[in-house]
């Protein structure tokens, strides 16, 4: 894999929570390739969410955590930035517009469906009504819920089903045209049908955005992803092409985990 098709890259990245004595992530080296889906798997508590939340620095909402190493973000214009160097609020805002995030439980804001999707756009300074309408429609179509929502854009988003809400959240994130989208177990609170819809959606959006997804569902990881990272106790135990990890892992630990012998 060549350097120039990377969108993010973690180098010797370590993370310690405020007040903790030991780091939760130890010297992680992980490349994230552009327009590919990278899955993160591993037993509970191994640090998947911690890693994901470092990649848009959402950790910084809470004081006292410490980082070491580098997380490079490669911008579309070819420039490179270590996001751990960011200090100013403005830079954080820009980072989060470039690196979006979807959570385990759907998080519709207490406002209408339209306003939910338009929210990030408005924050980004788009005021023009017709442009907003156009981009909201495009995002909702992109997230495959346009048909279900076009008649009720003015209604509260809280009245939708869980699966619809999750797709709305994806639409909301996609509307900002981020370079990377981080998913933290996006389907673990959903029924099988909604899960299928979300998986389909993720597979579709990868032509426009690079995806990192944390999942406990081995089938999901193998179906969906191009690369898989297996984490164990704060270490990146193995990282490779998904087929490689699932068919022919290097590490015994990885094999034991994906065959369900522990975890």
């Amino acid at each position, binding site marked *: 894999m060549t350097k120039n098709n990377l969108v993010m890259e973690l180098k010797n990245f370590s993370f310690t929570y405020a007040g903790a004595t030991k780091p939760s992530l130890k010297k992680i080296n992980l490349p994230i390739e552009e327009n590919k889906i990278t899955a993160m798997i591993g037993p509970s508590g191994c640090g998947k969410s911690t890693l994901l939340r470092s990649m848009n620095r959402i950790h910084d909402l809470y004081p006292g955590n410490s980082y070491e190493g580098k997380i490079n973000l490669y911008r579309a214009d070819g420039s490179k930035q270590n996001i751990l160097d960011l200090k100013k*609020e*403005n830079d954080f*805002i820009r980072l989060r517009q470039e690196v979006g995030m979807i959570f385990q439980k759907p998080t519709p804001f207490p406002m209408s469906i339209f306003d939910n999707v338009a929210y990030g756009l408005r*924050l980004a300074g788009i005021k023009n009504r017709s442009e907003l309408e156009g981009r909201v429609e495009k995002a909702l179509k992109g997230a495959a819920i346009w048909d279900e929502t076009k008649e009720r854009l003015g209604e509260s988003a809280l009245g939708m089903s869980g699966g619809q809400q999750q797709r709305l959240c994806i639409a909301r994130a996609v509307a900002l045209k981020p370079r990377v989208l981080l998913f933290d177990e996006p389907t673990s609170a959903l029924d099988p049908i909604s899960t299928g819809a979300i998986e389909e959606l993720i597979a579709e959006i990868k032509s426009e955005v690079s995806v990192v997804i944390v999942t406990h569902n081995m089938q999901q990881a193998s179906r969906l992803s191009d690369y898989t990272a297996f984490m164990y106790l704060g270490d990146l135990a193995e990282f490779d092409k998904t087929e490689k990890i699932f068919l022919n892992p290097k590490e015994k630990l990885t094999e034991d985990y994906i065959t369900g012998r522990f975890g």
Partner: protein
Amino acid sequence: MNRLILNKIILLLSTLSAVIGIGFLFWILATLSYKGITSIHWATFTKDLVDGGIRNLLVGQFTMALMATFVAVPVGMMAGIYLREYGHGSKLASIIRNLSDVMMSAPSIVIGVFVYALLVDPFGSYNGWAGAVALAIMMIPIIISTTDNMLALVPTELREAGMALGGSKHKIILQIVVRAAKVGITTGILLSFARIIGETAPLLFTSANNQFFTMDLGDQFPSLTVSIYNLATYPDEASRELAWAASFILTMIVLTINLLGRFVIRNKK
């Protein structure tokens, strides 16, 4: 980029509000402590109002507040138990719950007027009973609401487990549910006691005040808070000093009981 500036301004203003709030607390406590401590003498505690002390006032205020507590705690707890354990979910319980909340916020002076009409006017004289009743009326809804809320925190499984062992309902309530909610209810009682011990308005024309030491509840009854109100407006320096001393002591009592209540809950949970 002006949304960042707006953000800064709002956060600054919020912080400033907190500084103002804390500032007032310190200002009030500082002046109160200074004026209070410099006005307190040994005689303040040993003499009665007539001789320039507050001994009878402290005894009178505590007597009325304690009597109110002895009535309000069982009544309020039983009412809370009804709302949560017997009537829960019924229309009647929800009406009573709302009325009790309304009563909790009723103007205290109006309660004074009500008790005056009921227990002072017919007997032709202010009396300690009336003061205690007025305070009890203020306290009951607070106890109801704490009991109700604390019982709501007790998991249903605990009640079901008790039932499964064949306990009768009132025994389960008393021996399991109320016991599980004990800490929270105790805190509620302490906090509401701290609240009523500092009340003035409901006592103004129920117990009124008495310069002399008395334990006769049928008579005008000494009140610390009513005395503060009277003394503060007298022109002479000695009366004002006594008012400051009394205010300081009252505030210390209220804040101590209040902190004690919080301490109880912190230690147990």
